[in-house]
């Protein structure tokens, strides 16, 4: 039996909604089949008020073992570093986060806000938000760069806006079933199992990417969304086109550009006007090229690919 406690900071509950939609395994499977005891969760917890506070205090005192502490949302430090803008059970949430993180065997940051600060931490960051162990790309965050949980692992980051439900439940199962040692984390502390490949991996528009045929308007069934509509699939690490959403589709399959929400910089360009759903270019060349591709190579490849493109690549086709 592994005790799990889940709290929310500067959050929209999106990751909770996602978690509750998990299928392989489901949230219920975690309890019935994998021995996870959910001590409390904002949408599932029974305790209220003083009882909730007593539960958390018993985790902090060590009376109740805390195996997994999941935090959703940013750590709010405003105003002036006090954290008073986000109070919970009698004190700033950030104090609970510190106390519980120090007691937990494993700490899991869930969603882009908890991992890297996400939307709340975008400039000018009025809520003084930061992620658990990162602020955007900078390691440190609220818990500091040297933090490790009792298990010896740093914060396990599961980014996404929201994270895919099955990434969450599968990682929780790995932790609860004593296989946390199998989790290899990348430089941004994301489990490599999920975040080594690109969002583009498995995208049904890859043939259009290969032949450099661009989608020029939303709703087109042909064309790659990277060239003009701001898709970040070629430089974003996620399995969105391998582990499909609702077991059916993905953003890019449905014609929606990837926003890069599993990367620390999300939202890119601080959502300045004209940057959303528009590929940013410098002298006509994309500012952000597919990972590992340089400008010269990209230009050469494009010329060759376009010259070789077959006629069918220009035709509308069903890609969902």
């Amino acid at each position: 039996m592994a005790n799990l406690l889940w709290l929310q900071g500067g959050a929209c509950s999106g990751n909770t909604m996602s978690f509750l939609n998990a299928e392989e395994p489901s949230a219920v499977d975690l309890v019935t089949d994998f021995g996870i005891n959910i001590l409390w969760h904002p949408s599932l917890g029974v305790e209220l008020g003083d009882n909730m506070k007593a539960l958390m205090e018993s985790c902090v005192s060590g009376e109740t073992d805390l195996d997994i502490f999941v935090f959703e949302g940013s750590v709010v430090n405003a105003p002036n570093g006090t954290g008073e803008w986000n109070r919970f059970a009698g004190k700033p949430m950030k104090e609970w986060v510190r106390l519980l993180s120090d007691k937990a065997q494993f700490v899991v940051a869930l969603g882009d806000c908890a991992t890297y600060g996400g939307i709340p931490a975008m400039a000018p960051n009025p809520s003084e938000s930061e992620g658990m162990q990162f602020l955007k790309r900078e390691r440190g965050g609220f818990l500091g760069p040297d933090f490790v949980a009792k298990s010896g692992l740093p914060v396990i980051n599961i980014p996404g806006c929201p994270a895919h439900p099955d990434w969450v439940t599968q990682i929780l199962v790995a932790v609860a079933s004593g296989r946390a040692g199998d989790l290899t984390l990348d430089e941004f502390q994301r489990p490599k199992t999920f975040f080594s490949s690109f969002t583009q991996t498995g995208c049904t528009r890859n043939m259009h990417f290969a032949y450099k045929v661009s989608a020029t308007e939303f709703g087109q069934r042909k064309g790659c969304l990277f060239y003009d509509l701001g898709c970040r699939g070629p430089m974003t690490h996620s399995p969105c086109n391998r582990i499909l959403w609702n077991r059916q589709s993905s953003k890019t399959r449905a014609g929606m550009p990837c926003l890069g929400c599993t990367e620390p910089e999300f939202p890119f360009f601080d959502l300045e006007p004209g940057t959303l759903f528009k590929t940013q270019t410098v002298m006509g060349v994309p500012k952000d090229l597919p990972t590992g591709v340089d400008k010269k190579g990209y230009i050469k490849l494009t010329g060759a690919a376009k010259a070789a493109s077959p006629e069918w690549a220009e035709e509308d086709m069903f890609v969902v």
Partner: protein
Amino acid sequence: MSDSDDKIRKQAEKLLKDGLKTEVFPRAYTQEQIQDVLTRIRQSDGSLEQRLIIGGFTLYPIEDEDIEQACETCMYYLVHRRYCELPELDVPVEAEWSCRLWRI
């Protein structure tokens, strides 16, 4: 479709050969410049002539900083149809033509 494309392509070629003055420079390199050009095209009468002028079309590729900006390599160019699919331009072209909205 193809006959109609050919007709318009020839018409565009004739206009350019006859000396239609197009706004080749400045090239639309920044997001603001791109938006300005697109907005002007949208606000024009939408005629072929206006699209060629504001788009800055030429019958030859413009080269800037060692990058040849030919329709042939542009993301909006459909190779087989020989067509610019940028919604605001929406015009049959030739591979060696160029315009200031070129992007790769």
